[in-house]
């Protein structure tokens, strides 16, 4: 545990009253789990879970050239994001290395004179992203504002979440598509209601002012009682995103990798107008990926019960052929699973003879396509 002072969210006392096990996550004292992380995971898969994600970093970008700035600073084509919609994207260095993966929400009303974006960064990278956006804003008629302290973020995730949220708001949830967001009122509290998440389930993320977080948490807890909603910590959030095959910065993504190395080259939009940071290096990375395929991000499913962890070596025929980036026991599959970067020769689903070196013992693993879990729509 770090000895430096940890930051606490607006819901800190609520978590402690619920008996949460807390953990240091990117300098924040966050709930790891309230009871059994397996029960929390299964609640999100089958009913609903309530998360405090206030550690995420919000950065507001406004002004006449806000879209041009984001098109220059990020690899996606943000200019094509319509009001009320959101986009998964990345910010890269000049050399193409990934600084962070982001969700950008466009918040202005249709027809507004000036665009208004909220960029949501990982807690561990929020300062880096803020600094990069501020630096890259030079010469653009746009303002970059640190809004990390302006928002608390609650998430309701799971198949029961639309019904639970509908009982607390008049907002048109049926009209709110995946990766869309609209301003509204939830339980009497002004909120940005977004249909996003990191669990592989239907669900919502609610950005509210910190002073409203406790009232909203309590209202959601009460509204979800009958549907089986329970509070959920970061431990199950990690296994939920892993089953859904979603990358985590620091595990699957890093400055040492370009989006093409991570199998996410589709987020880079070369066809957009104007230059953007990393264009030249990413053009080369795209060509390299086509001619000399880099290691491929694959899924691994254990035949036994020992759990692979980040950094463990993937082996075949006595050779090291890759490295585990994330691993955990999968509550849905009932077996340990992992994401790993492996040599292309061993990346095809069903490849024989692949194992993970678990503290000296080579445990057999099956190579599978990602994701491990896809919800039925």
């Amino acid at each position: 545990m770090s000895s430096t002072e940890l930051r606490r969210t607006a819901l800190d006392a609520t978590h402690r009253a619920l008996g949460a096990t807390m953990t240091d996550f990117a300098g924040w004292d966050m709930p790891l789990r309230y009871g059994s992380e397996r029960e929390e995971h299964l609640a999100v898969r089958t009913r609903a879970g309530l998360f405090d994600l206030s550690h995420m970093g919000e950065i507001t970008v406004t002004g006449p050239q806000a879209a041009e700035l984001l098109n220059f600073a990020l690899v996606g084509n943000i200019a094509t994001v319509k009001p009320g919609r959101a986009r998964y994207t990345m910010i890269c260095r000049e050399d193409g290395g990934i600084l962070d993966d982001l969700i950008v929400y466009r918040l202005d009303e249709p027809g507004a004179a000036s665009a208004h974006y909220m960029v949501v960064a990982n807690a561990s990278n929020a300062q880096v992203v803020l600094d990069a956006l501020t630096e890259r804003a030079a010469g653009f008629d746009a303002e970059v504002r640190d809004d990390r302290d302006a928002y608390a973020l609650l998430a309701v995730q799971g198949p029961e979440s639309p019904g639970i949220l509908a009982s607390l708001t008049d907002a048109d949830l049926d009209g709110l598509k995946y990766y869309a967001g609209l301003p509204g009122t939830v339980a009497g509290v002004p909120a940005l209601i977004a249909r996003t998440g990191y669990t592989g389930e239907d669900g919502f993320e609610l950005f509210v002012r910190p002073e409203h977080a406790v009232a909203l948490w309590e209202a959601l807890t009460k509204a979800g009682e009958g549907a089986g909603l329970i509070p959920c910590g970061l431990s199950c959030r990690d296994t939920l995103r892993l089953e859904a095959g979603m990358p985590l910065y620091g595990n699957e993504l890093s400055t040492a990798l370009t989006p093409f190395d991570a199998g996410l080259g589709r987020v880079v939009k070369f066809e957009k107008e104007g230059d953007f940071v990393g264009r030249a290096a990413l053009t080369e990375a795209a060509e390299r990926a086509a001619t000399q395929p880099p290691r491929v991000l694959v899924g691994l499913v254990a035949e036994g019960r020992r759990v692979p962890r980040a950094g463990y070596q993937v082996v075949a025929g006595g050779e090291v052929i890759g490295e585990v980036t994330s691993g955990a026991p999968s509550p849905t599959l009932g077996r340990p699973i992992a994401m790993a970067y492996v040599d292309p020769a061993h990346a095809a689903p069903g490849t024989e003879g692949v194992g993970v070196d678990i503290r000296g013992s080579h445990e057999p693993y099956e190579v599978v396509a990602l994701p491990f879990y896809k919800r039925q729509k």
Partner: protein
Amino acid sequence: MSNPQQLRYSKEHEWLSDAVDGASTVGITEHAANALGDVVFVQLPDVGDSVTAGETCGELESTKSVSDLYSPVSGEVTEVNEDVVNDPSLVNSAPFEGGWLFKVRVTDEPADLLSADEYTAFTAG
């Protein structure tokens, strides 16, 4: 949580029973089980293995981490709990009962094992 009075405890969070028919039972405490989170894999010593007080003799794997299992005493393993190997969640649900780990014929017991009250104070601090 309450630590059974009749057991003795190590600072590595194992518990040890009095010998019955020449063998003492070893498990991990409820405090340790709660700290680990859901236990998903248990590796135990084999019957007949010699274990040494304070040294690792197996491992416990939970969702987030893997932890070494330390033997609280020296001796020879006479039985392992196959139920907990097949269903590691017993460590969480019944750490002092059905979640016991192995039985050992004790040849040497360290003098510094804690009483229930001492262990409770140790984990509170």
